[in-house]
């Protein structure tokens, strides 16, 4: 089985889907001629022609909106937003146009499209090359959202996203693009949206993570073991709709939950997860759900090391939870 890094897995998934279905079309800035600033669409223009993998004028709003028109008409656009920090520019299009189309038209029009975008910090990107803006879509009915943490999942989830009839936002952690490598089968497999992945079984405490935070949690395992904490690690994978049964089952088993994400704590996805856990499983919780997150500041440049959730901060939260 070939080994791939994350961006190669993205490339592989796109390639297979473009070969499978001629309606799949990639668009975005630098997507065509150059094959993507991260090489996700490398070689596609030569292989599939200018109508199937192409550069757009410089407008994220335009990429999403033009893609939406294409999707309404029956294509399956995969729109690349070069950095997730620019997705805000297309926010109205995603929120009030793409996401709501099926609802407003009682399903007579719909937008099967994928909006792919590298997100995440720790790459010296400063305020707008580092954000993890998943929470801004959390209050938007009609959107699905996926964040893979490894090459295998990346391929399987991206293929599902492309085949899904609903709009899917697909964030790829740019810090993982070349940092994580793994075996990726060349066959046509998919991973269903909405299902979390059990990274590691454990009985004492549940770590809920996604994207690059999965690695962080894994890195913390030795120190957790030293402390005698047998942690269960759950990779959420799909943020919307998230896998409530798996979360609840794990919380029930361990009684303690720590959620880790890069985005600022206040208003982050962790709040909703925590609320749901408390709502549905308060009696099973032996400690309050803890959140280890980015601080409530914009993403800094020089101090990003201080800003990012770290193994230390994770351990502190675990200690607090265990000691509760």
């Amino acid at each position, binding site marked *: 089985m070939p080994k791939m890094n994350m961006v190669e897995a993205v490339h592989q998934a796109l390639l297979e889907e473009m070969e499978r279905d001629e309606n799949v*079309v990639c668009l975005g800035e630098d997507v065509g001629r150059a094959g993507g600033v991260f090489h996700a669409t490398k070689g596609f223009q030569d292989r599939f022609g200018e*109508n199937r993998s192409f550069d*757009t*004028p410089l*407008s994220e*709003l*335009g990429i999403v*909106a*033009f*893609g*939406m*028109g*294409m*999707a*309404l*008409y*029956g*294509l399956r656009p995969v729109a690349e937003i070069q950095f997730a920090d620019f997705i805000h520019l297309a926010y*109205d*299009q995603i929120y*009030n*146009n793409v996401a*709501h*189309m*099926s*609802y*407003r*038209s*009682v*399903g*007579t*029009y*719909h937008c*099967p499209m994928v909006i792919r975008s590298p997100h995440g910090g720790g790459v010296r990107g400063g305020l707008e090359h580092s954000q993890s803006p998943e929470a801004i879509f959390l209050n938007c*009915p*009609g959107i*699905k959202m996926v964040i893979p943490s490894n090459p295998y999942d990346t391929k399987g989830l991206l293929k599902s996203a492309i085949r899904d*009839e*609903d709009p899917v936002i697909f964030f790829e952690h740019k810090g993982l693009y070349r940092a994580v490598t793994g075996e990726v089968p060349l066959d046509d497999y998919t991973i269903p949206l909405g299902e979390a992945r059990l990274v590691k079984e454990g009985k004492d405490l549940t770590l809920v993570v996604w994207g690059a935070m999965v690695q962080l949690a894994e890195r913390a395992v030795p120190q957790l073991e030293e402390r005698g904490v047998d942690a269960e690690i759950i990779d959420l994978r799909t943020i919307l709709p998230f896998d409530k049964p798996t979360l609840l089952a794990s919380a029930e088993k361990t009684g303690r939950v720590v959620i880790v994400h890069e985005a600022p704590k206040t208003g982050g996805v962790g709040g909703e997860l925590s609320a749901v856990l408390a709502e549905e499983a308060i009696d099973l919780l032996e400690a309050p759900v803890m959140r280890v997150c980015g601080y409530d500041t914009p993403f800094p440049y020089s101090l990003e090391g201080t800003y990012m959730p770290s193994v230390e901060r994770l351990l502190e939260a675990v200690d607090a939870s265990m000691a509760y």
Partner: protein
Amino acid sequence: MSESIGPMPTQPRMHRLIAEDGTLEGGIPEGLGEADLLEIHRLLHLSRAFDDQAFKLVRQGRISFYAGSRGHEGAQVGSGYALEAHDWVFPSPHRELGVHFAKGATPFEKMSHYFGRATDPTQGRQMPNHFGSRKLNIVPPSTAVGTRIPHAAGVGFAARSKGDPTVGVAYFGDGATSMGEFHIGLNFAAVFRSQTVFFCINNLWAISVPLDRQMGVPTIAERAAAYGFPGVLVDGNDPLATYEVMKTALDRARSGGGPTLIEAKVVRLCAHTSFDDESRYRDAAEAEEGERKDSLVRFRAFLEKQGLWDAAKEAELAATVRRQIDEATAEAEAAPLPAPETLHRHVFYEGPEGD
């Protein structure tokens, strides 16, 4: 230094075929026979009568809200009549009544929409005026004006890449041209030579904001030059002229010639919506003056001059239309509301429903 300042484009000439008194100034557009002319006339009447009825229903508290199309019908019906069934329309969220009718919407469908009934093609999901229908290729608008303009460019690209003759058509007002989406939609369409027509109905107002507070140029048509495709100015009270420029633009788009921006100039003969009190900002004289240019008056005079129409026919048409609308009103009002449990349906795709 002054030589390096780009020359200001001269304003485009206004295209017109019928003079205000109904005299035919140009030729009747190719392909339009007697039946077509009478059908255009019928659609004008249907729109106007529907408009009158809807305002009445608001006043009576039977529907919640209405944005009138009075004064805009010449542009709506004329351009809408040029559309093929397979062309996709992105109407503005609050007008385009005459386009809906020209595209084949029935008074019952439209009334069901205003009453928010289950018989509305989008089953009462949208607030009044936000009409849409899959069958008719009318995409239900979102309320923010202008936001659908790039969608028409995307549809026009998709159709081109599939080799379909479909044209994506965006309708919008003068105010909507200030949105970023206007610029982006036109720019994308230009770069991709989308099969798209941008149809702006310029009624000189965006609610209370007059054109000269909206932009620094006198016409919208001239802005097309910034994108590298034609901009056409047309008298929106002349259904034949709007038909002709729309037909030309559609043909051009279908044959790979790229997009066109059309500006149809009209006079708003109503308040912005039933919610609006235009006396706060608008001189009554403008609308009075506008009434003289009304497309319904002009088109009737034209038909009469052509020997196709007379007072008896007019009365008969008015009665027919009146009856249709009364029936549609009664039927729609009697139709059921969507069932409460449908609230949760179609947030995510469940397959099509409705029309």
